[in-house]
């Protein structure tokens, strides 16, 4: 499991020296931000959530550094933050204080595939999150399930639906539903 660790032994793997927390944050930050940007559709929000997740890792570094995948732990924390409605409301108010201009890009630079990014934003939040973890963060199905705390089967089915939905958005087809004569319900 993602967070499985031998706490009782209290010893780090001899072959793996624990990372310096500062170095870990520097390395993990860009990957986390990109994944969260895909999941949330908002680079500023993604950056803030990433920094918050890394701050929590910092505070618990003596334990987090001994996990098999410290970065995956950060993904879980970040995803929890991203989908927390409480925190988003506070975030919007603080953002309104500090950054009144809406921005979804950094330094005016857009993603390399604006069409895909626009299509991603039209997906439901869960589907976006799954796609971001599976393909941008390159997590396995099992790790994605662990991060989002859902069954593996749900990750698979959600991935499949999300890709199908994304394909439909990128390549629209005529509505197959028959036209019916309707009246007020």
């Amino acid at each position, binding site marked *: 499991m993602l*967070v499985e660790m031998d706490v009782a032994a209290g010893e780090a793997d001899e072959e793996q020296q624990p990372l310096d927390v500062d170095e870990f944050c520097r390395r993990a930050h860009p990957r986390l931000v990109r994944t969260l940007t895909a999941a949330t559709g908002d680079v500023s929000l993604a950056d803030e959530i990433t920094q918050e997740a890394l701050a929590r890792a910092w505070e618990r570094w003596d334990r987090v550094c001994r996990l098999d995948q410290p970065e995956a732990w950060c993904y*879980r924390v970040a995803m929890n933050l991203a989908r927390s409605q409480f925190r988003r409301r506070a975030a*919007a108010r*603080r953002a309104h204080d500090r950054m009144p201009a809406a921005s979804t890009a*950094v330094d005016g630079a857009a993603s390399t595939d604006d069409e895909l990014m626009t299509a991603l934003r039209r997906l439901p939040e869960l589907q976006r999150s799954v796609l971001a973890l599976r393909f941008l963060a390159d997590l396995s199905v099992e790790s994605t399930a662990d991060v989002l705390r859902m069954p593996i089967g749900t990750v698979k089915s959600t991935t499949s639906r999300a890709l199908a939905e994304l394909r439909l958005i990128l390549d629209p087809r005529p509505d197959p539903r028959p036209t019916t004569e309707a*009246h*007020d319900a």
Partner: protein
Amino acid sequence: MHDLEDRLRSLDLPAPPLAPRAIAARVERRRHRRRILTTGAAAVLVLATVGSLAVMATGDDDATIAPASAPSEPSPVSSANTIPTPSAETTAAETTPDTTMVDLSGEDGGLYIDPAVATELGLVPDHAGDPVPLDEPDASEQAPFTPDDISSDMQRAVLARYDGTRSLVIDSITVNVLPSASGLSEMEGEIVTLPNGFEARRQDAWISWSDGIHDISVQHITSSPPSPDASPTVDLLAIARSVTVDADGAIELTTVPDGFERLPSEIAADGTSGSYRSIDYRSNSSLASDRPELSIDVATGAHTAEHLLVERSMIGPARAVEHRGQRIIVSHDGLMSPRPYVELIWDDPSGIQVWVTYSPMELDATEQDREVFAFRVVDALRRADAANWRELQRTADEAHRALVDVAWIDELLGARGFERVGSIAPDWEVLWDRDGLFIVSARSDDGTAADCLIVLRTDVRCVTATDPLRGRFATARVERTVGGRLILLTTPDISGVSLQRFDGGWGRSTIDLSAADDPRELRAVLIEQPSVPACLILSADDHVVVTRYSLVDGALVDPSESCMAQT
């Protein structure tokens, strides 16, 4: 399909650079404010499929919409029905012979509500969790109160000043000590020299320095909203002079400012270990996938309740009351939650810390209503043993399965001559935050296709393809529902909805409808009905404004000049 997967993998998104020591500084800020700092574009909230949009109202008849970030008006100390004296009973309920709290000592187990009282209050258990050890790395993501501000690397001393009744915290002073590598001593500010020769940096309410081993900061925070008794400033330099830190980071203060007292150790006796357990209750008429209306959380080894009072007071109204000989922290919130809630916290003599959080579905419940209800629950708490808890878990699982069973949707539609023919939004597999609105594809008895909205489990509205949604208002329609909410219906070209006061002040936020898990020709969202007229702004992709309305008394009217002026 693989082409699309490859395309996703190669999606190159910009990542803003991480400023040096940004994370360390954030750690310090968290510990000062205990607030989760997330940010976003000013006009965008990323929500689940449906959400609620709140425009804060002060409750006064002639009040304008209060800033969404401002705390609700505090209960003044002189208010007869809110701030009791330390010896007064707190509940408005009839007097009972019982004058002491229920004994919650016992076997290892969580708390539950006496079943007879739960039935009387209309509550059913919805989820009873297994204990979560507080020293698990991600325990803070499950428990609302882990010592996440406390780590083996950090020490903190808190000084608090109370009002005369000792019910309210006027202001507090916090001394934080972190390892020297945190870089906090390099923060900006006026440079001052301490008597011991250390160079400190000072801002209005904050001073920090390094002693070569630790980074030390002292911060003065006034309660929110500020008490008239609050001192405008505290001599932080004098406090800094009185701080000594030993090699282990333990903090000593040779002097304490007048009126302040140092709180005992922040963590309970064995605070670095312990466990957390919770149980959730819903009302009998609750929704399938909404957040619970009542939660009871229990922890051992957590922060002391007194520290939580100080913390809560700094970010919103909070007070301590005496209830049957027990000092209980009471705080209300309606700013960070779509549903206002009351929170009761205390350190029980049995050694556990208890949190009772009540957030009713009905939005028109007053603060006093919530408090009365929550204290009824407090008086009906019982301590479970292992066998009790397993039974509670079984009961909760059964109740929850019954709640998510979609048969009730079929019954509602059938009673109105409709048959469900498609999926239900939102997705039932993962229970995200919802606000009681489901969209179902249906077909009437004569074969007419319709999208049916089901609100709060009772309100059913079916919209067909030629619905007069496209009548006078080209893109939106508002319909009333119960409990102070409105249903806003829009066409799928609308991707964002925001509410704003006429003067453009606080209250504006946007729901991102483009994330709706619904391919149908309809979008719907629940809105809390604002108490004053507001501008309703509908936008399309990239925040292009499509149209504006004035929302007056729950109805859409032609926009006023004030609305047209809003961007």
